[in-house]
């Protein structure tokens, strides 16, 4: 994996105008049933605004190692097929490859998952949902980029609506190459991810918290109608 680029690096991308928030998100005065007038600010009042926090490791290394072993052996994938690579997840679940024997299983909601597999091309529209879902996952959480689209844009390298480098928008722990990768490649990738986690290097969530401003700036660079709070857990 490429070294993480620190904030403040040169940005050669074009500045884009900010768009005003949608009408339903703007602060407004509403009348309650008993006639009282109150001001609501949807983005402030309906969501928690607190930015993500860095979770320090346990005080004793041996305890943290135990935690990491447990985390590595219970990989719960968020069932959100973002691109064509998601098709390879089905055979993985079925008896032929049976990923469950490795402690890998699929979950229906971000709250129950700790691994987000971005399975290929990510359009700007989907990126927005992916960010929301990622932020709703519990710490510690991991991101695997599947297929060349997540690495450099793949065959959508000149597309107007798909991002090219996933690691600029979400902290990626591991990439699996291919277009699309076979289930065996996914299994190998998951085993590699286990090694990363056991070595205590699966720190994507903390990296996200530490470089929050940089990630947000990148995300807002492409998502023009930012109609969500900055951190939407």
């Amino acid at each position, binding site marked *: 994996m*490429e070294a993480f680029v620190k904030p403040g690096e040169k940005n050669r*991308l*074009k500045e*884009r*105008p900010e*768009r005003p928030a949608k009408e339903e998100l703007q602060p407004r005065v509403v009348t309650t049933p008993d006639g009282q007038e109150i001001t609501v600010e949807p983005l402030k009042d309906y969501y928690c605004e607190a930015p993500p926090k860095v979770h320090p490791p346990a005080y004793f290394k041996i305890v943290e190692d135990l935690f990491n072993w447990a985390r590595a052996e219970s990989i719960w994938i968020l069932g959100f097929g973002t691109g064509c690579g998601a098709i390879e997840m089905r055979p993985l679940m079925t008896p032929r490859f049976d990923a469950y024997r490795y402690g890998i299983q699929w979950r229906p909601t971000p709250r129950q998952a700790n691994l987000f597999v971005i399975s290929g091309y990510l359009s*700007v*529209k989907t990126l*927005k949902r992916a960010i929301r879902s990622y932020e709703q996952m519990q710490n510690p959480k991991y991101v695997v980029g599947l297929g060349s689209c997540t*690495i*450099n*844009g793949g065959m959508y*390298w*000149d*597309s*107007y*609506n*798909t*991002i*090219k*480098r996933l690691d*600029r928008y979400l902290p990626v722990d591991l990439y699996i190459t291919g277009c699309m990768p076979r289930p065996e490649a996914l299994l190998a990738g998951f085993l590699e991810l286990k090694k990363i986690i056991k070595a205590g290097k699966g720190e994507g969530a903390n990296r996200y918290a530490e470089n929050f401003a940089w990630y947000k700036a*990148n995300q807002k*660079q*492409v*998502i*023009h*109608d*930012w109609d969500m709070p900055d951190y939407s857990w």
Partner: protein
Amino acid sequence: MKDLIDRLGTLFTLGDITEKRDDLAFVSVAPDLLRAVITHLRDVEGFSHLVLLTAVDWIEGGRFQLTYLVNNRTKACDIGLRVFIDREEATMAGIHDLWPTAATYQRELKEMFGIDFPGSPRIDEEFILEGWTDIPPYRRDFDTKKYAEETYFHRPGRETFDPATHMKDKLYPGEAS
């Protein structure tokens, strides 16, 4: 198909006619005639299904081509109506009142080509793109590569080879110029 086109020809002024197969033909009609022709096809000739509505940007000629493909299920044949409209003032009468499904096509054409269909339901709402600020991306003067370069991050190291010269280099290293 021949009879059908002859019958249409007696009722309306038709433009170019291309018969692709026994069960598929394309006919050009003037924009202001389209609704009449398509209503006739639906109500009299039994074309019950709007297969698609799509556009082509003929930038050299300064016009858009709209193609309305309709299908007659009982006779198993299709006819495509071609309409050319001005590229600068890209506006066309909608057919969403004849086929409700057309509204979705019209919304897409508004977003991707900037062709307006006044009065079509939700025509000004975003369809696929969210927060798009540039010119409609399917217009041919939109430079998608340039846009991608200015908008998204590149990973250094990706190289592109012209297949012809690359293979020549590999196979006949001495001869390649």
